[in-house]
């Protein structure tokens, strides 16, 4: 596994050489990654280990091996987290749901609802919200208390295009304020539009990672879509199987991801 340091001075959270298996099946294998202020998009095929990586980064999933560190350890709420499946308890309104979390971090639930455009739905019960509204509510929850790192697992999944854009934009708006926003998504257009950095996860390993512009140049591709196809070794539609960039850090089966934290 990699024994290189991956975090730089700006890193707000990092995982070092983490692995995770379930029932003996490895879903994440020796991954190192650090995130810094800005929007980091995590993409990859279904079952590639994205959610596990995000869970470990958020501190809610225990890695089988490896280390996790959070730069904002002294903060009241260093990490904001939205799981893939929005989990709020039925029977409570949107405002009551956020009030519960807001009370723990001295945050105003109404301001949080307004931030994601859900003020009009404040008195609706969670179970009667649409899928998009629930996700926006989840984003509002994750951003409560101004965490230094916001980890959002597929916040745009299953939403119509307008809602997807809104969910992504709402999360990305925190990046200029110094928040490291980590978003997993299958929507590569939105990733292209909003992400500063990209992490491509494939079969439990990081296939590519770094600032978006640098990765485009390294892989000699125009779009995130092409980059994704090339990085996971499924060709770019021209028949090529893979195209590792020059100076790739992957050696002796390990993954070294220094680029993610580059500014």
């Amino acid at each position: 596994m990699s024994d290189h340091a991956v975090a730089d001075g700006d890193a707000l959270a990092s995982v070092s050489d983490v692995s995770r298996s379930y029932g003996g099946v490895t879903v994440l294998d020796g991954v190192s990654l650090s995130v810094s202020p800005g929007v980091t998009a995590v993409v990859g095929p279904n079952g590639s280990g994205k959610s596990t990586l995000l869970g470990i980064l958020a501190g809610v999933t225990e890695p089988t091996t490896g280390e996790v560190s959070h730069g904002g350890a002294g903060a009241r709420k260093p990490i904001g987290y939205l799981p893939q499946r929005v989990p709020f308890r039925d029977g409570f309104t949107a405002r009551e749901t956020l009030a519960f979390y807001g009370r723990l971090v001295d945050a105003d639930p109404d301001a949080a609802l307004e931030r994601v455009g859900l003020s009009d739905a404040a008195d609706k019960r969670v179970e009667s919200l649409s899928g998009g509204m629930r996700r926006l509510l989840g984003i509002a929850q994750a951003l409560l208390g101004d965490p230094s790192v916001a980890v959002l697992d597929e916040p745009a999944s299953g939403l119509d295009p307008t809602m997807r854009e809104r969910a992504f934009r709402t999360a990305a708006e925190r990046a200029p304020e110094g928040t490291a926003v980590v978003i997993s998504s299958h929507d590569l257009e939105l990733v292209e539009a909003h992400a500063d950095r990209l992490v491509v996860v494939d079969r439990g390993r990081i296939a590519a990672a770094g600032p978006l512009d640098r990765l485009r140049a390294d892989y000699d591709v125009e779009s995130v879509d092409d980059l994704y196809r090339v990085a996971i070794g499924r060709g770019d539609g021209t028949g090529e199987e893979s195209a590792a960039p020059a100076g790739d850090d992957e050696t002796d089966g390990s993954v070294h991801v220094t680029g993610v934290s580059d500014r």
Partner: protein
Amino acid sequence: MTGPKRGRVGLAARLRGVDTVFRRELATVARTPGYAALAVGLGVALFGVVAVGGGGATGFVPAIVDLLLPVEALVPAAAVVLGYRAFLADAATGELAVIRTYPVGVASYVAGVLLARLVALAVVVGGPAALVGVYVGLTAAPDTGIFATHAGVDSPLLYVRFLAFVFGLGAAYLSVAAGVSAIASSRRSAIALGALVLVGGVLGGDLALLESLSAGTSAAATPDLLALTPNGAFRGLVFEHVIGVAFAPETDFVPTGRALASLAGWTLGGAVGGGASIALGRRVDAAIERVRSDE
């Protein structure tokens, strides 16, 4: 919680965490119609017992004699219903993972959930039982035939004491059921574990005592052994401090201190077990996976 590390949480923050979780849990219980139905059902059963048994028409102690055996089954059942999903609910939906990212520790979370459920227990069990007491107080009149069976002093205070012991019994079962719910992986497994707690507690304790006596344990040890189980402790306390008050028994039913400590111990044990499971469950799971990977 054991999520991302954060600064030291002060006492005020801990108390706020307990209070916040408590309010949410209490609101959840209050909005669950099934618990109201449970209280009504329990009330009907208790009123039925005192009506059919006849003791309720005579006085508090005779009513308690009639209620004692049914209460030993009904109250644990109600408590298990209140507790069997207490810690599973948030874990099953994934909301526990979200809560872990907030400054609320495992102890605060467990305390908040359990305190709210104990308040619910006081209402669901204590409410109907108290109404039965009011009914007995308003309607009881001396009845020679039954009085001969339940001779002695009678007092509403004895009934209040009985209610306190009933709450202690229910609290022990609720806490254990809640603690066990922390290791359940689904509603179905939670029901199975809750049933195990109920059957094991209501029947298992007495059966174990009988087995122990048949294996040669001295009968003189019975009071001490009886006090170890929630039902035995409850029964002994009721005999010792409620029914026994009426006819000055020659021997102790259970050592009072040991019986009270037993009920408190089961209650505390359930809370600690649940908390430990929440705090360490993920690490244990990861450790097991580590062992698997090494094989």
